[in-house]
């Protein structure tokens, strides 16, 4: 393993309930201190990829049936989440899964589960420093927070674990554009200032490719495209399907047909 690689996914296949194959021969590299973005439309298998890394497939009866996931010398495919989190991989699940009946600060404290008994005051300060709006909500129940506050809360909660690899699943989902921009800026700062390696799953390719160093595009459980983020931003297919920029002017029915053909080629 190249020594600036933090995570190497080698040809993994993932199967749910022993029969439903979702990922087919997926390979990805994640370099230390980089932001790697994983793009793809609904049902492509992005969340499944993150769960394969974090061990959260297990409770869903999913399994890595082929290939390996190498994380800093450990083979972590099919390990339990208790083990994987303690190696420094923390996943922020899609849908802002806060603990509704815990206060904001209690939510943050759950983030210390991997290092129970160690001091955490400094980490709390760090989280409040990045996510200033949380300070005012410290002692209110997370269930009553707004969507933006919740997104900050779940990212902040993951930071409390002092992760080396942070997996973010669609942090922009359902948030107002300004807020998305703010959150992506914070993600970028966390990467630069804390040196945290990030894997960012997004449908908002535009934002994701602006802060990412490298990107992968996934369709139907396969990686169909990969490259430096700046190259992907210029790639005509990515532009058309993920950045919402048509190659030229208005979209006519002919173009739609063509687009469909191009899409097919990726599968």
């Amino acid at each position: 393993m190249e020594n600036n690689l933090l995570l190497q996914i080698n040809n993994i296949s993932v199967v749910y309930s022993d029969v439903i194959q979702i990922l087919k021969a997926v390979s990805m590299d994640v370099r230390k201190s980089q932001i790697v973005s994983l793009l793809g439309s609904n049902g492509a298998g992005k969340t499944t990829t993150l769960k394969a890394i974090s061990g959260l497939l297990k409770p869903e009866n999913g399994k890595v049936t082929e290939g390996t996931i190498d994380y800093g010398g450990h083979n972590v495919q099919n390990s339990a989440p208790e083990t994987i989190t303690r190696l420094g991989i923390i996943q922020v699940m899609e849908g802002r899964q806060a603990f509704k009946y815990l206060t904001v600060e209690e939510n943050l404290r759950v983030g210390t589960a991997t290092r129970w008994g160690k001091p955490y005051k400094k980490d709390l300060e760090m989280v409040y420093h990045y996510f200033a709006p949380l300070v005012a909500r410290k002692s209110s129940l997370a269930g009553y927070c707004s969507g933006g506050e919740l997104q900050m809360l779940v990212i902040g909660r993951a930071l409390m674990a002092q992760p080396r690899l942070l997996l973010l699943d669609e942090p922009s989902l359902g948030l107002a554009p300004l807020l998305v921009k703010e959150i992506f800026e914070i993600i970028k700062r966390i990467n630069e200032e804390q040196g945290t390696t990030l894997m960012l799953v997004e449908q908002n390719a535009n934002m994701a490719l602006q802060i990412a160093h490298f990107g992968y595009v996934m369709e139907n459980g396969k990686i169909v495209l990969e490259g430096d983020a700046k190259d992907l931003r210029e790639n005509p297919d990515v532009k058309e399907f993920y950045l919402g920029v048509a190659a030229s002017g208005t979209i006519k029915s002919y173009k739609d047909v063509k687009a469909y053909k191009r899409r097919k080629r990726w599968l």
Partner: protein
Amino acid sequence: MEFFFQIVITGLSLGFLYALAALGFVMIFKSSSVLNFAHGGLMAIGAFLFLVLSAWARLPIWLAFLLTLIGSFSLGFIIERFFLRPLIGEALIEVIMLTLGLFYMIKGLLLFIFGGDLYSYPDFLPPVLTFHWGGIEVTGVYVATFIIGLIFLGLFGFFFKYSSQGIYMRSVADNQPAAMALGVHVRRVFALSWAIAALVAAMSGIVLGIINGINVHEVSDIGLKVFPVVILGGLDSIGGAVLGGIIIGLLETFTGGYISTGLREVIPYIALIIILLIKPYGLFGLVEIERV
């Protein structure tokens, strides 16, 4: 008026006893959604363990108490590890059958060893506990129950509210996948909730023994009393368990004191049915937070 106060105080201490009993039941349900029908059995084990250690082995009371708590805590761990864990992910009915089976196994075992006789603990309560105020006299057992209940409910409240382990336990009850993603050891939380539940069950068993003396049938059947209490309070609410316990305790002593002693035993169940008809999720059950 004096009679009234006496009834309030005995009702409150009885209420604390029920609250303690219900607390363990609610903890297990909250963390792992298991309805523990063996709860009365755990109470009985605690009560008889204390009897053996204090009256038969003649250990100092504090030591007997401590050993009983440690023993019950470990027993809770063992039960989770060997009986419940293999059933994780199985249908609810299987888990319920298992806890029912455990209950009858424990009861049968205790009947085999101790028979159906009534035992009582050595009289260890200092006489100063008996409480005189004007013409009111509240006997030491009720005062002791009151104090023990207050101390332990306070301790548990503190544990769940402020300690990291308590917060991890609540996080599992709240959103298990999210807790797992943060590295909370969910199976360990299940085991810990069984251990703590067995510990509080033992404690309430002892308290019950102090008030009424102990008898296998009586102690294990009072485990049934937790149902009106937790249904009143809401199955998933620890605060509700405490309030539910106090309400049932007061209801019993007031019915016994002013209406008839015969009705006293029945009234919790009558209340249970009425409440189920009006508020199926309990008076203090969690109100689902809709906004997200």
